[in-house]
């Protein structure tokens, strides 16, 4: 007959064993997560009160970075540019992908080859996609400009024009991303319950009404993932800017991620870059949380 204390000990041993087992499974991934994700976020906050550190030790500067960052015109410009880029690229790629997905859903023959080809651009690194776009955009031999010259007689300097440069970079993302979102939306559309659509058709709802009143609302879970994911990715836009314009002309394509990179390697101001990084983390997290609530409520 065991005493109560023995039972309690057995229970503790069991609980300890259960927790140790679970944490053993979690440990390797958690270690990587803490070391290379959680700790860097904490370090961002610490570094935002420091200056220097690339050569020699970092110095504590109090709130200097924070004070400066809110009056820095270039920072304001990069934030504007980044949001401008996302506001162009995300709706554009979503609408195009939705149209392509609906078209794929409407045809009977040739699915696989068309899907395969539409997916080719998605596979490429953005950097390669951007480099490929120089051959589309180049003033002398860009294929789009050869077309322009044939039509209007004048080539367009897509990347050299301050008002055209950012939309052009958004175009790279649209070209590369359309295939990805098309497949995602198509999977969503094909996963919808068919009966509902048959019922709606019997009720006399036309294709447009079916799309706006059934397809779109029912795809809400897909859109939730898509909007959140696209926001996170696009607010980090860097590769295409780096290879196509390097922030120019006249900082028209200077994005936040580009500025963070430059603050480390060109301006030698990691503390300042960390401050901006910290703001970027907060903005993306806040947007993600707001989007989650927004989608949950609707």
């Amino acid at each position: 007959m065991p005493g109560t204390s023995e039972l309690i000990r057995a229970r503790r041993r069991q609980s300890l064993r259960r927790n140790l087992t679970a944490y053993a499974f979690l440990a390797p991934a958690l270690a990587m997560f803490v070391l290379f994700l959680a700790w860097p976020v904490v370090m961002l906050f610490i570094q935002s009160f420091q200056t220097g550190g690339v050569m020699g030790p970092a110095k504590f500067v109090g709130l200097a970075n924070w004070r400066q960052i809110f009056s820095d015109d270039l920072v304001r410009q990069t934030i504007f540019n980044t949001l401008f880029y996302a506001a162009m690229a995300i709706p554009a790629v979503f609408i195009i992908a939705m149209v392509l997905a609906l078209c794929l859903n409407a045809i009977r023959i040739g699915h696989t080859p068309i899907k395969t080809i539409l997916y080719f651009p998605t596979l490429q690194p953005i950097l390669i996609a951007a480099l490929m776009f120089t051959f589309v955009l180049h003033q002398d031999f860009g294929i789009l400009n050869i077309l322009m010259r044939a039509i209007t007689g004048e080539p367009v300097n897509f990347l050299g024009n301050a008002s055209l440069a950012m939309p052009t970079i958004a175009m790279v993302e649209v070209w590369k991303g359309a295939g990805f979102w098309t497949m995602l939306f198509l999977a969503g559309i094909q996963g919808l319950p068919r009966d509902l659509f048959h019922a709606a058709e019997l009720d006399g709802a036309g294709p447009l009404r079916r799309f706006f009143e059934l397809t779109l609302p029912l795809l809400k879970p897909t859109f939730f993932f898509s909007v959140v994911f696209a926001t996170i990715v696009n607010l980090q836009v860097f590769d295409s800017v780096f290879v196509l314009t390097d922030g120019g002309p006249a900082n028209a394509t200077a994005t936040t991620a580009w500025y963070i990179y430059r603050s480390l390697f060109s301006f030698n101001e990691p503390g300042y870059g960390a401050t901006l990084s910290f703001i970027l983390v907060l903005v993306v997290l806040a947007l993600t949380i707001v989007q989650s609530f927004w989608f949950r409520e609707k």
Partner: protein
Amino acid sequence: MTKGLFRRRNAVSLQPTRSMTTIAYGILLIGVLISLTPFFYILSTSLKETRSLFSYPPEWIPSTLFWGNYAKLLQETEFVRWTFNTLFVGVVVTALKLVLDAMAAYALAKLDFFGKRAMTGTLLLAVAVPVAALIIPLFFIVRSMGLINTWWALILPALANPLGIFMLRSFIVSLPDDLGHSARLDGASEWRVFTQIILPLIKPGLVVHAIYTFMLQYTSFLWPLVAIQTESRQVLTVGISGLKANFVVDWGLISAASLLATIPITLLFIFLQRFFLAQNLSGALKG
């Protein structure tokens, strides 16, 4: 056969009219052309001498094939090294991340432990942390570990993002609990349950996970640009971007490099197409 036909018919829209189908094919044709044209154009460019690029009207299909760009790329640049580095790092990251994420996903999906809810929430939130914002502290952390310019600098930080954990978790959660209970009663340790019961049953999930991890690694640019400063240790994306840094840009060389860089990932895609196109990624964030 009939089954396949039936499924296909189910997948299409309700009785699309002929004109709707024509419009759909028209739009898709435009999409296909826009997707493919840049590939063909750099193929054509890579087979021309750079100076003939600037002639107008352009020569769409070069009358004589010029292999000089490829020869220069393979002989005078470290292109082969970059390709090897990229593939090597990609394979190592994929293998390690698969093991780490699967283990963690199993714990989150099927095991009970102290702090589970808080941990799940934290990891889910961490999915949203933009990696581009972490390059500065990561640079200092990796430098203090003495890993700058090593493969470890590319491999270790790539293991941190928890998105893959959630993707695999959604696969494991869908398995009935009784399978694990049964195996435990049969005498299996937790590790055996994981390796002998769970892993074999989520193979499709593992393949999708591996593909996405590899693709993400293959396409990464910013972090390798920061972490690797030795040309011979560089990955493809950064290496190729460096070709543009010369005063007189060798466009023929760049087009050849870009085209070759698309080949490994395209081959992988063609072999594993059904996994690429089955978008199981969105399931990850629903849990």
